[in-house]
């Protein structure tokens, strides 16, 4: 098992009555709720936390892209990955990812990912999400019905730019470049591993499997949602004749570890409630723009996790509900170890993404949560699958002795 550490970078200071006074945490949230001095400290706090996760031996640090969003304050995850690249040595930089449909030309993403791979000595995972409806359609204005074809074109363009050795003409429907020439080449050959974070679109499963990429189920609804997506994904893998190598499948899980089960509730309950009541308080109108999902997916009944329809059934939920429904795996190290092991085996997950800074959780609790997890839970989790399956989808960095040391770097 690869154990990675995910940061959403939420605004920790939403007012107590936010979910009643405001329509949505995303798209139309009033900017007056933001404070730039606090924002300065908060970004640096989050960077400290990610660096701490590296020190604690996590396999990777995950960042992602959102816009006009108070629970995910990374319009450019590449900047965050660049910031931690120089102050970490071991952890992979898992950028999940860049919404490639929106960048014209998407060469910018090919270049920035190459830069991250170069700075980090080959530790990059390149994540290519189709992009969410609130981000891409509402906050960035892209037409829902054509987002997917823009996405496929951008993907083909980026891959070609990474692998072609001569300058070439790219003549796509949405991108036309006479001289495509990636002079800087990523460390990893032929290119960094590609992971696809998905929201449960039927066609993305097939596409991901056909390209032999990792599919990542990123949800805040834990096992319940993971099971639905996992079942659909692995069914397609069987139908397409792929092996069931768990390292093909990434899964995000909220995790809270304390000394005892009771202490976990004491430490983390209010931050979980903040997360589920405020951070994912998303206007229903923004969850799923018409045309964003294909007809097949609409029919399959897989809806996005946002929206009031989703928040309705979470309304009034408390710590016990979050734990019972496995939205969060929480408790003593033994409790977390047992439950997490069961879930990861049941869902056939090989790439765990642990979300341990949750909602309003302050730094000292994030550190505690991460340290207890890393020391008491992670060692046994990492053993899962290690003997049975090969991870063909994680970065292959330069050997440590060949890598630049920040502060002492010199090219020869």
């Amino acid at each position, binding site marked *: 098992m690869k154990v990675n550490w995910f940061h959403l970078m939420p605004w920790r200071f939403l007012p107590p009555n936010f979910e009643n006074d405001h329509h949505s945490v995303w798209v139309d949230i009033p900017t007056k709720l933001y404070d730039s001095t606090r924002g300065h400290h908060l970004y640096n706090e989050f960077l400290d936390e990610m660096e701490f996760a590296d020190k604690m031996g996590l396999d990777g640090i995950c960042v992602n892209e959102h816009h006009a969003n108070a629970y995910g304050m990374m319009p450019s995850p590449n900047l965050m990955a660049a910031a931690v690249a120089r102050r970490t040595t071991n952890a992979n930089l898992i950028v999940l990812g860049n919404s490639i449909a929106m960048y014209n030309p998407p060469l910018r993403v090919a270049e920035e990912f190459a830069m991250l791979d170069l700075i980090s000595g080959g530790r990059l995972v390149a994540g290519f999400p189709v992009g969410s409806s609130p981000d891409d359609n509402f906050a960035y204005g*892209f037409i829902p*019905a*054509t987002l997917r074809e823009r996405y496929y074109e951008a993907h083909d363009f980026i891959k070609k730019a990474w692998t072609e050795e001569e300058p070439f003409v790219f003549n796509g429907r949405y991108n036309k470049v006479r001289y495509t020439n990636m002079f800087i080449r990523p460390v990893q050959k032929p290119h960094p591993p590609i992971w696809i974070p998905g929201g449960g679109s039927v066609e993305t499963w097939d596409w991901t499997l056909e390209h032999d990429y990792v599919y990542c189920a990123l949800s805040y609804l834990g096992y319940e949602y993971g099971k639905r997506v996992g079942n659909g994904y692995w069914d397609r893998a069987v139908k397409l004749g792929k092996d069931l190598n768990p390292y093909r499948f990434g899964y995000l899980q909220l995790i809270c570890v304390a000394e005892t089960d009771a202490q976990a509730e004491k430490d983390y309950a209010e931050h979980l409630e903040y997360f589920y009541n405020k951070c994912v308080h998303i206007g229903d*109108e923004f969850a799923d*723009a*018409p*045309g964003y999902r294909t007809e097949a997916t609409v029919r399959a009944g897989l809806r996005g996790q946002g929206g009031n329809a989703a928040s309705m059934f979470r309304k009034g939920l408390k710590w016990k509900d979050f734990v019972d429904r496995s939205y969060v795996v929480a408790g003593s190290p033994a409790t977390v170890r047992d439950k997490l092991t069961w879930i990861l085996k049941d869902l056939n997950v090989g790439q765990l993404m642990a979300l341990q800074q949750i909602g309003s959780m302050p730094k000292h609790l994030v550190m505690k949560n991460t340290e207890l997890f890393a020391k008491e839970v992670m060692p046994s989790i990492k053993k899962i699958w290690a003997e049975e399956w090969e991870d063909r989808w994680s970065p292959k960095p330069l050997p440590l002795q060949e890598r630049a040391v920040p502060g002492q770097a010199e090219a020869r």
Partner: protein
Amino acid sequence: MSDLKTITLRGGDFSVKYYQQGSGDHLVFLHAAGGLPAFTPELQEFSKRFTVTAPLLPGFGSTGEEHLHEDVQKLVFWGWDLLDALKIERAILVGHSFGGMMAAEMAATEPGRVKKLVLVAPAGLFLAEDPTLDFFACSPDKLAKAAFHDPNSEVAKAFVAVPSDPEAATEAIVGRAKALAMAGRFLWPNGDRGLNERLYRIKAPTLILWGESDGIVPPSYAEAFKRLMVGSTVRVQKIAAAGHVLFAEQPQASVKAVMDFCAS
């Protein structure tokens, strides 16, 4: 009751369903983003005087919307290709809302083939000082409030009603999503795809008809259209006690306005 006919365009890329009824000069009706559920009463009225052709646009019962991508020119060519295939050389174009934008685009592209133009609360412009409603991000209730002068009327209630049969309800939801997805190809995110720079090309005498209580595209847009249509004679007429769906809400006054203009 008129039946749907089918014709294919562009080697089968598009299969078009359309109604055709009546006799006399050609009148082509282009429906709104709500679709065309039947050969509606207003079309029945038009067909007493004209040969009415009313296609279902791609995504609204006709197929091939994926071939249009998000290209306004492709949408316009779809319209003219259809009229070519139906051997309609010249016609009165009547378009409502999304269909109004399309009719205006078609008339700007082939000004000589449009005898008269009727734009009923057309989409296609955006004025920052008086923005259109973001109807893509509206609950059905909010949409009904904006679309009707009287949201509590029977027609308004019928507009938002979801069938009680679960299978029919699913089809209704999928159908609505497909229709809005198609409209979104040309109206996302704010409806402005450059029509303001093409309206000058229209030559046909034009009636712009608007419901005074339109909460989706404000009635002030009628004057904006008129101001930009420097190549044609434009008459603006507002209908009292009507919102965006004016044929449903004030059928008599709306139909009379169109008939008076087209038959004159």
